[in-house]
């Protein structure tokens, strides 16, 4: 959210160069951080909530390290081979890429105080619509355009129903989940639609400098999402609208329009994900991206996004997605069943939330105590 997370952000999401970097000169006589008349207060710099999310993200990196160590312990044979390790990292990132893109949109929606249960369905609808024979005749550009326009439009409908129709986000997007999958089944006639477009299919099979194109797309979306959330007025409004809608409204922010845009943004991410997933399977069908909504919500929450809105980080969500992908990978390399894997994932979600609640409380208390004893 602020400076601290900036260092943790991948892909060096640098703000544009025209942004004036130095702090503008403070008015003459602006005092330092310590209030002039507050001798008892203000020992130590305040790191605030930014510091908290930084610590939380560090914790997630810790979890990731533990998972990798488990991998090394259970399959020392594989981890001995550096080539395999490199490939495996790429396959984890590839696995994370599609859900990761969806999660970025989901993170915005949740920070903005909403929830989007229809993301999987939107991916499916956009995937199916972009692979109809008619659409494919327009080539790769036509397919991408269609996927994105369809997904954004569905997102706008969600947003409209919620913002102006005053439907509860949970209900509106649940209805959309059912409806969009229904429409996808209708369009595809419940068939699997094969994509014959080499450019599209190439998105999943091509590498640049040894890194899959899908991973670049994920990195790009994450970087854009980070900049959008932390450096733009759009991001600021998102936090305000989710944190205290009434305060945002009384500060002159158009809360309804903004929450509508958030669902459109989620739709946009789904459109991108639809192309990626279609490319991976060389096809699209109405049942694709099944339960992506749960994966995305879980990843966002593990990443520290508050379900009640107003707080969350893109970096945390990305780490959440990567943790899930690593677990899946861990089970795969050990030849374990997906059932066991789902149970472990469920456990991790609960554990992560519990640990966060518990740890940050005790951690702040601990810090307070230490500070005390050191000054005494």
């Amino acid at each position, binding site marked *: 959210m602020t400076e601290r997370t900036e260092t943790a952000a991948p892909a060096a999401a640098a703000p544009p160069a025209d*942004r*004036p970097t130095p*702090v503008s000169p403070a008015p003459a006589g602006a005092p330092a951080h310590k209030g002039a008349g507050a001798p008892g207060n203000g020992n130590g710099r*305040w790191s605030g909530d930014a510091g908290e999310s930084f610590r939380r993200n560090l914790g997630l990196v810790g979890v990731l390290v533990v998972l990798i160590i488990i991998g090394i312990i259970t399959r020392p044979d594989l981890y001995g081979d550096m080539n395999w390790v490199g490939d495996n990292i790429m396959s984890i990132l590839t696995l994370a890429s599609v859900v990761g893109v969806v999660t970025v949109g989901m993170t915005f929606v949740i920070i903005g105080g909403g929830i989007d249960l229809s993301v999987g369905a939107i991916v499916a609808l956009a995937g199916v619509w972009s692979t109809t024979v008619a659409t494919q005749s327009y080539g790769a550009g036509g397919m991408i355009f269609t996927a994105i326009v369809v997904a954004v439009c569905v997102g706008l409908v969600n947003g409209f129903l919620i913002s102006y129709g005053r439907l509860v986000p949970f209900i509106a997007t649940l209805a959309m989940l059912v409806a969009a999958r229904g429409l996808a089944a209708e369009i595809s006639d419940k068939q699997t639609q094969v994509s014959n477009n080499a450019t599209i299919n190439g998105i999943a099979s091509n590498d640049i400098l040894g890194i899959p194109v899908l991973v670049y797309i994920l990195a790009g979306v994450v970087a854009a999402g980070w900049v959008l959330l932390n450096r733009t007025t759009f*991001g600021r409004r998102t936090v*305000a609208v989710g944190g205290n809608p009434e*305060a945002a409204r009384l500060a002159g922010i158009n809360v309804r329009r903004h929450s509508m845009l958030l669902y459109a943004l989620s739709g946009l991410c789904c459109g991108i994900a639809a192309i990626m997933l279609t490319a991976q399977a060389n096809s699209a069908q109405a049942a694709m991206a099944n339960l992506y909504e749960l994966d995305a919500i879980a990843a966002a929450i593990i990443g520290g996004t508050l379900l009640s809105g107003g707080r969350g980080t893109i970096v945390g969500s990305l780490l959440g997605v990567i943790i899930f992908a690593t677990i899946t990978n861990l089970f795969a390399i050990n030849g374990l069943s997906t059932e066991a894997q789902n149970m472990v994932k469920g456990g991790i979600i609960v554990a992560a939330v519990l640990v966060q609640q518990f740890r940050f409380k005790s951690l702040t208390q601990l810090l307070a105590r230490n500070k005390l004893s050191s000054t005494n």
Partner: protein
Amino acid sequence: MTDDKRPDEQVQAAGPTAVDNPDAVDAPDGVDSPNGTGPAGDPPPLVTPPADTVPGEVVLRLTDVVKTFPGVRALDGVQLEVRAGEVHCLLGQNGAGKSTLIKILSGAHQPDSGQVEWLGEAVSFGNPQAAMKAGIATIYQELDLVEDLSVGENAFLGHEPKQFGFVRRGYMARRTREILARLGHPEIPPRRMVRTLPSAGKQIVSMARALSHEARLIIMDEPSAVLAHDEVGNLFRIIRELTAQGIAVIYISHRMEEIREIGDRVTVLKDGRTTAANLPARTTPTRDLVSRMTGRTIEYVFPDRPADAPAGDELLQVRQLAREGEFADVSLSVHAGEIVGIAGLVGSGRSELLETIFGARRASSGTVSMAGRQVRPGSVGAAVRAGMGMAPEERKSQALLLGEPVYRNVTLATFTRWARLGFTDAGRERAEANEVADRLELRPRDVRRPVRTLSGGNQQKVVVGRWLLGDTKLLLLDEPTRGVDVGARAELYQVIRALAARGVGVLLVSSEVPEVLGLADRVLVMREGRVVHEAPAGELDEDTVLDLVMAGSLMEGAPA
């Protein structure tokens, strides 16, 4: 850090009148044995003027209580002694640690060190339930009601009367009705949803909650901040009843008159330390109290009105504005550079009027114009674009993003102006927020702190400070000094006057009649949703306004 420093600091802080009688303290009751509890080097005890000794036995004694938050030492060695049947006032600037102190007593926070003695035994309340069980009830500064529960359910939250595991709803409603009647508000229905009450009604409910316990100590953190004048009288009557039964009351307020009227003894906090204890509430000169709070003497005065009447152009014009059930037929105008005050009881429709002018509520009829151009009704965005800004009544629910840093709260209405191509300019925002923080003496001064960690009065400064930025032409202020301490209040008045001098129009709502009279150029009096009187402030006095304002009940103005 304190052991060797503390004694002389105290001598210094205690000032001339206080040190007179340093030995008198532990003599009367003998329970006090500072050698047992105090740290090595044992500071000289603080003052208890013997003349004012309250008869009741000591029920609560705090010794050297310390509480640290990350980066702030909120309490840095607090001493406090409360006797049965007394009203013990806590005085201190915004951020002095009053709320933190009472949160320790109510079990919401745990002290890092120091001793809390309750009814002669050392205690540490691990949670609010423990404190309530022990007989300490608290009315918090920030309302802590569950909005979607009924009045009765809120009053008995956590200790509902039960039988066979079922809540005795009828009995609970009956008890609630009794308590509300005792509070002077039999008209509040116990089964009414709290969400639908106006904020003063909510305050009554949280008071009812405190009374629903068999408490021996009731703590009130700025209860009067949301009450109108007649409500405060009511509150005092209740407090007197309570103390007559031997119940002790800890009373926090920034209003000196109230402390004079209801208080028995005063303990003053400054920067988390007790700078004077057990001063007589009625006789200690204000000058002394203020200097112990602030370390300097502040004149609690209003800035002078400019000699020549404001001749600015008409800025705001409201014509026959009405909102069903709230107010009707309100016409008023505010000129550039003019401060117009609205006096009226809570529930007279003042806040609703302000919100409607600002577009946060939609008028059922009438128009609002700025500089001759009609403002689109029901749109805050349009009002802001037309140059209006409003500091709403309830800071926590209506104005603040509690988890966000101070500077982002200050710039919430203006950040887009400094943004380029949609990219925000954090450096500029911090600089602007710093300037506001200086003008309003925000403490602590670090604008990167989350607003959540600020004291109530400092949060209020953030709310008002928001509209000092940008090119606000008309400022709508709803109870701008609620919870703001004496010093900062004077500061805020200066700031408002200075804004007016620069041509900003101000429409001010306040429950404190002296504030309206002292600050405004022109005063409107509202009663039951109508403007009943209008006059230049110089032609009115407090009694006249109170006469005009009186009559009317709390439940008006609440949506049915």
